[in-house]
């Protein structure tokens, strides 16, 4: 029996011809996010084009805006690495004064969001600007050539967290910006993965539909950074959900006691082992000689779920 999925608009805002790598996860994010946004704008304001994009410096900004070309069919601005949220605040304020209906979409990678842009993000959320901040998380500074960020997961190889005689790779747990965003008690926070595009699409639509700020953190695998084959991008993103390493949830108004989960096994037991997710990626290859590091990663993931209010079993 065919499963009924929500329809996805045929409108395109992310044009073919951008310069992203084959199999680029963030490129899929750009395409889906803008489509979802346009549907929300059509429903809310009767105009599918009623949005503008403020982009942080990073992979997606660079590959989409090489002068004199552009991949964007929406009004789009890039200013710097750390200030997409602040720029979006200014655009939103100006639109308010101009009486222009619509919503602003701010986009940043994990570097521009979890690290250098965190302050601007916090300011924008706290001031309740009518902006959706979309963090595409490829878990390292991929634009500069795979250096670790605070969103890089435990154990991962990057060029600045190389495994060696005294190192297992990245030695700190991943920082979850979605939880920091939710602590601002904003109307809507969600995590998503391009491994479940319909869930991501629905969440982007929801984010765009609420009044006030929203934050979406979407897992977006990076082919060169994760050392994965281009055709495995979606599969690896799906495995992240299925193994429990990437929780899918929604938090409204900072209500941590009523988190909504998606794709969560009823009995709390994830069927696929985290190893299935790790094995597909060159960045975790070295962990298979260090089972204690994989165990540590599992402990961290269980702890994350516990903080979210769920006791889980990871095979």
């Amino acid at each position, binding site marked *: 029996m065919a499963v009924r999925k929500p329809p996805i608009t045929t409108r395109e805002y992310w044009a073919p011809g951008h310069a992203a790598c084959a199999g680029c996860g963030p490129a899929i994010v750009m395409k889906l996010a803008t489509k979802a946004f346009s549907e929300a704008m059509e429903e809310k304001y009767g*105009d599918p*084009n*009623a*949005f*503008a994009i*403020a*982009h942080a410096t990073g992979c997606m*900004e*660079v590959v989409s*805006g*090489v*002068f*004199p070309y*552009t991949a*964007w*069919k*929406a*009004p*789009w*601005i*890039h*200013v*710097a690495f*750390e*200030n997409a*949220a*602040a*720029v*979006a*605040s*200014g*655009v*939103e*304020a*100006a*639109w*308010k*004064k*101009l009486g*222009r209906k*619509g919503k602003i979409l701010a986009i940043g990678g994990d570097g521009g969001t979890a690290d250098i842009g965190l*302050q*601007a993000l*916090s*300011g924008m959320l*706290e*001031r309740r600007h009518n902006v959706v901040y979309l963090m595409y998380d490829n878990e390292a500074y991929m634009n500069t050539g795979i250096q670790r960020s605070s969103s890089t997961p435990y154990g991962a190889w990057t060029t600045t967290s190389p495994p060696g005689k005294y190192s297992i790779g990245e030695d700190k747990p991943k920082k979850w910006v979605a939880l920091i965003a939710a602590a601002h008690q904003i109307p809507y926070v969600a995590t998503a993965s391009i491994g479940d595009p319909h869930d991501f699409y629905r969440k982007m639509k929801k984010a765009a539909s609420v009044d006030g700020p929203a934050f979406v953190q979407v897992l977006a695998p990076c082919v060169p950074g994760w050392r994965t084959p281009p055709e495995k991008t979606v599969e690896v993103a799906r495995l992240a959900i299925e193994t429990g390493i990437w929780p899918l949830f929604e938090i409204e108004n900072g209500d941590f006691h009523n988190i909504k989960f998606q794709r969560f096994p009823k009995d709390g037991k994830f069927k696929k082992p985290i190893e299935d997710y790790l094995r597909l990626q060159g960045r975790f290859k070295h962990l298979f000689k260090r089972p204690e590091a994989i165990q540590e990663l599992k402990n961290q993931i269980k702890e994350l779920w516990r903080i979210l209010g769920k006791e889980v079993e990871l095979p």
Partner: protein
Amino acid sequence: MPMRKVMKGNEAAAWAAKLAKPKVVAAFPITPSTLVPEKISEFVADGEMDAEFIKVESEHSAISACVGASAAGVRTFTATASQGLALMHEILFIAAGMRLPIVMAIGNRALSAPINIWNDWQDTISERDTGWIQFYAENNQEALDLILIAFKVAEDERVLLPAMVGFDAFILTHTVEPVEIPDQEVVDEFLGEYVPKHAYLDPARPITQGALGFPAHYMEARYTVWEAMENARKVIKEVFDEFEKKFGRRYHMIEEYKTDDAEIILLTMGSLAGTLKEFVDKKREEGVKIGAAKMTVYRPFPIEEIKALAKKTKVLAILEKDISFGIGGAVFADTSRALINEKEKPIVLDFILGLGGRDVTFENLEEVVEISKKALEGEKVEEVNWIGLRKEIL
């Protein structure tokens, strides 16, 4: 009828912003400029100003929000000083490169270390190469007037560059003086509404702003900033003329005082110009042929006006509250550049003084004149002189 009110420099800046009717103001408090956003928030709270006031979490976000607002197509204003301006540094280049006519008021203040909240010009001088037009006010009236002038110049289609107006920390920001507040209708007539043709985020006509410039295009993009700054020379003079017609007050790139038969001219910027005029009067009474000059516009640098000024004197003494380590004062360096190819040129001397709020006294100015006289008599003197330095604590 224009209204006269006694007010601080910061209030004059806030009044200028109110009169200019920006649609977005984004600012963060910093001494000595805090009163500017405070006053603006009062205007907004009382419904006297119809602007979105974004209470940002840092100066970096203040200027970033201004870039966003200006790129969305509205008149935009902010205020800061010192460390706050330094925190904006990166985005100042971007605002100019994206040709966004943001106007910013600055209570000129020293930079750390050591931390110091008092006046010098190191903050704005450090931003001289960002592509922002720079004005320096002598008094509170000038602070108000120059902000209005800054909007008019910045938004001119031949320019389209951001502009900053500096007024000295505490000496002006916190000192009350009578200020004439022009009529709103006349200001409206002077400024008009800002309707950009080049930059606005409109879903009906999507454009990409802030693209990546490869080596094939970057230089040309930077050249257009250079060209715009060159155009600003002419536009500023036109706007000065128009301002005089509308408001009755005259501004010059360089304002001269008793320079016609001077052998020594003291050139400065900002509030020190007032002190210099008094000092010149005193020295004239003693029979010393000195004059004073005030540079109102520092970027674009008034090259022709400097050449004309230099022709009138034997010694051009530059008095500046900034230092470019490893060369001397920035105004000195720029003046030297302006005169380098002149056949006949005066002796140019640099005097670094008043850093971090150190008082500039008549005694200091006497020392400047003494050194200038020595140079005039053919004695060898230092090109860069620190005046009022307390050698006993070095």
